[in-house]
């Protein structure tokens, strides 16, 4: 199975280890992974800021990079959601195919590869941060707002990791306050949201905070570091690939 | 009148193609006094089951020994009935300690009782009294609001109200206080 790996632009630049973990994990699970070198960004930063009309060039670039793949996988719920909902290339048919081929990493592992076992070890107490776009947008896990049966693709995968202990949070799916440009345009609220998320994890004993979106984790990490906390963030790919 | 036609014209131009009305939700659950009691207690009301040989006036004396002014819209409660209701200035009910009314039915899912102007004679009566007492037959319970509206769907009341518990507010720091503007307590006397 050939998989096109798409990395969020800031992950490529600031968190290369997340890219490495995603790549190695997919390879371990038997995928032939291709990373198109000309990739940049899904276009979400512009679109969420109200500049969807400026994202046509990134849309076309994305199309050029990924139109050949049957599966496009990204370790980001937010970017995957953006491509799935808002990618509109000039070639409508090809765009529809790319939108349908887009998977968030844990979604791909659960729904396509149907992973039931992982050879991973992470003997630590971990708090799971549900990124909103992955959770409510891609339904990676059931949201607390609905009266519906609970499930979580992320928890299921983390449950396959040896030695891991997931901590219970007081608010299991509250937004961290990153929100793209929101994090700087609404700095005060964004930071307060992040601090409140961090304290939920730390007060419940987490040594690590994980999630499927590095953007949320980058925001939480910024707060943890400012607080000189020993708690670290790890993208879920890093934990699923640990061992 | 000009705005009327202008508004309607604008609305007509703006509204989308007709979307069909969905079929009604129905329910077949049975309403019962136990569920009603549990829910009403949860929202600050109480239910008192009356023995077949018990009389309302006697029960009221038992429940509210210090009440001064007790009035009722129920004709059979001769001593409390508002005989002068046609001439009465409704504001004069301001010092009523207990209003006794009869409800048509109770709703088990939310502890509400349905009362119309016919039942209270004076609209403000169940709101202005310090305490509210509602008579209800044991057989008069529906399960939920769908069943409730099936019962009253075509009633030609002038005013009708679902009352669920005493008047309340939590506007000050979410602390629940019973007796905001209306009754401080609500007692349902269930007759078998």
């Amino acid at each position, binding site marked *: 199975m050939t998989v096109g790996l798409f990395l969020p632009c800031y*992950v490529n*630049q*600031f968190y*290369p280890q997340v890219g490495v973990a995603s790549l190695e994990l997919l390879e371990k699970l038997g995928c032939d992974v*291709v*990373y198109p*070198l*000309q990739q*940049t960004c899904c276009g979400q930063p512009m679109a969420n*800021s*109200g500049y969807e009309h*400026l994202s046509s*060039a990134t849309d076309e*670039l994305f199309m050029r990079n990924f139109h050949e793949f049957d599966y496009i996988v990204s370790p980001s719920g937010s970017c995957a959601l953006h491509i799935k909902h808002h990618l509109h290339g000039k070639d409508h048919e090809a765009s529809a195919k790319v939108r349908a081929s887009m998977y968030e990493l844990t979604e791909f592992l659960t729904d396509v590869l149907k992973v039931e076992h992982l050879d991973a070890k992470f003997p630590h107490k971990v708090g799971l941060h549900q990124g909103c776009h992955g959770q*409510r*947008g891609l339904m990676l896990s059931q949201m607390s707002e609905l*009266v519906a049966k609970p499930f979580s693709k992320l928890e299921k995968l983390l449950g396959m990791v040896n030695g891991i202990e997931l901590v219970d949070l007081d608010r299991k799916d509250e*937004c961290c306050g990153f*929100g*793209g440009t*929101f994090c*700087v*345009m609404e700095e005060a*609220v*964004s*930071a*307060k*949201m992040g601090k*409140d998320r961090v304290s939920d994890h730390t007060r419940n004993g987490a040594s690590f905070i994980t999630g499927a979106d590095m953007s949320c984790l980058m925001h939480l990490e910024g707060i943890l570091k*400012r607080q000189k906390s020993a708690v670290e963030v790890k993208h879920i790919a890093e934990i699923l690939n640990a061992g | *009148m000009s705005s009327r036609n*202008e*508004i*309607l014209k604008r609305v007509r131009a703006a509204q*989308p193609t007709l*979307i*069909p*009305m969905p079929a009604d939700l129905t329910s077949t659950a049975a309403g019962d006094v136990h569920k009603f009691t549990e829910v009403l207690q949860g929202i600050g009301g109480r239910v008192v089951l009356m023995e077949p040989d018990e009389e309302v006036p006697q029960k009221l004396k038992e429940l509210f020994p210090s009440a001064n002014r007790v009035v009722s819209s129920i004709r059979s409660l001769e001593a409390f009935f508002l005989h002068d209701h046609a001439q009465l200035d409704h504001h004069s009910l*301001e010092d009523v300690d207990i209003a006794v009314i009869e409800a048509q039915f109770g709703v088990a*899912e939310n502890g*509400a009782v349905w009362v119309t102007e016919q039942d209270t004679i004076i609209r*403000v009566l169940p709101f*202005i009294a310090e305490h509210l007492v509602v008579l209800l037959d044991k057989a008069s319970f529906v399960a939920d*609001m769908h069943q409730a*509206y099936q019962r009253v*769907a075509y009633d030609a*009341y*002038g005013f009708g*109200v*679902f009352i*669920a*518990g*005493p*008047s309340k507010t939590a506007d*000050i720091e979410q*602390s629940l*206080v019973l007796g*905001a*503007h*209306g009754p401080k307590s609500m007692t349902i006397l269930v007759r078998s």
Partner: protein
Amino acid sequence: MQSSRDNHSTLAERFNKDEARVSWHDQTLWWIRQKRDKAAWSLGEEWEGLRSQASQIKAHTLSNLSGYLEEFEANAIANGAIVHWAADAKEHNEIVHKILQDNKVTQLVKSKSMLTEECHLNPYLETHGIDVVDTDLGERIVQLANEAPSHIVLPCIHWKKEEIGELFHKHLATPAGNADPSFLTNAARIHLRDKFLTRRVAITGVNFAIAETGEFVVCTNEGNADMGAHLSDVHIACMGIEKLIPLRRHLGVFLRLLARSATGQPVTTYSSHFRKPRQGQQLHIVLVDNGRSQQLAKEDFRNSLKCIRCGACFNTCPVYRRSGGHSYHTAVAGPIGSILAPNLDMKQYADLPFASTLCGSCTNVCPVKIDIHDQLYKWRQVLTKEGYSPKTKTVAMKTMAATLSKPGLFSFAGKWARRIMRIAPWLVNNKMNPWYKQRNMPAAPKQSFTEWYKTNRNKDKK
């Protein structure tokens, strides 16, 4: 009140100066969200079906709103009510004032009506010498403080009991230092009872208006709408035209959802159905458009008119909880207010659709399933295209779009950004960078993933 130039982020920043208070505000509202969850779960499988049903009834109603308005009007008139139509806030206020003048009245009591807040009725009447007393306890508190409600269901959720004690000491002569909620509520009860007994005109809002019967329903917990209306000679009910529902039995659906969504109660204490005026009483119904027909015409935003004003989206919104209602500088705050307000004035409310992380919680608590966060996204696009975006932001976005569409430029810029962050961190770690104010920047690695991939893998066929 704030100056209209202050936008959401400025007002929110001010609100966040007292962090302990923000935490308190957040926790209070989250507790209500939890009560809502419990109430929703108590209905089990029925809940999601009720939401769909309510959403569909509203969709149907909006698709024949003109017909239902005419039906409602005819039935209301047959019931003995007097029906008025107001194109905008100004006309609404003038109609109410005219009714007061016709009845030679200069004092009135008013129960909760977000429509009258939207129309700024109180200040209008006050300038015409009318004394308005809000009778909902929370509304009375903010009225005494000369403030607007900060929440459509919980008007003084931003007030602490000690502050209310002080306010009542000043205005209602309660003993200084007494902040007991029961005591203060009782003081308000005595104060307002006097108003109920002496005012001849009562204004109420409307939760639902029934086309089939010409009646309307008002929901309260305090009983203030009923005390006002039943003791008045003149009852004026003010409603937006979107309050219509076709049939009385549809109330079964909406009343099951409303209080559970709003406060977690199974139903409000009073659900009062006003069909005919009391004998000898005048009943006026004022139907108000004020931008609603314009919103109805917008396919992307039409569904916002389904709103039943339960406030669930406020309570769940992580931004609202931490920025307070006044930061939205509009009568209806929160997520729903942020998709309603730009329809009335794009320029003034251009900031509101951006006062969100698009987390989507609002959409999923909404009892009538309004796609709130999708509409926030769509408003962002509209506002930007219409030119209501700051110029600096447009320049930044254009630069970003240009960089991200050119892989060579992107990797060049990325490399230099990382290098600068390593060599001269003070260039980004300073107060010009809003990120850095309360957060550290990520560490800048020497190698990007692309660079790592080029050295460690040789599979790329392009």
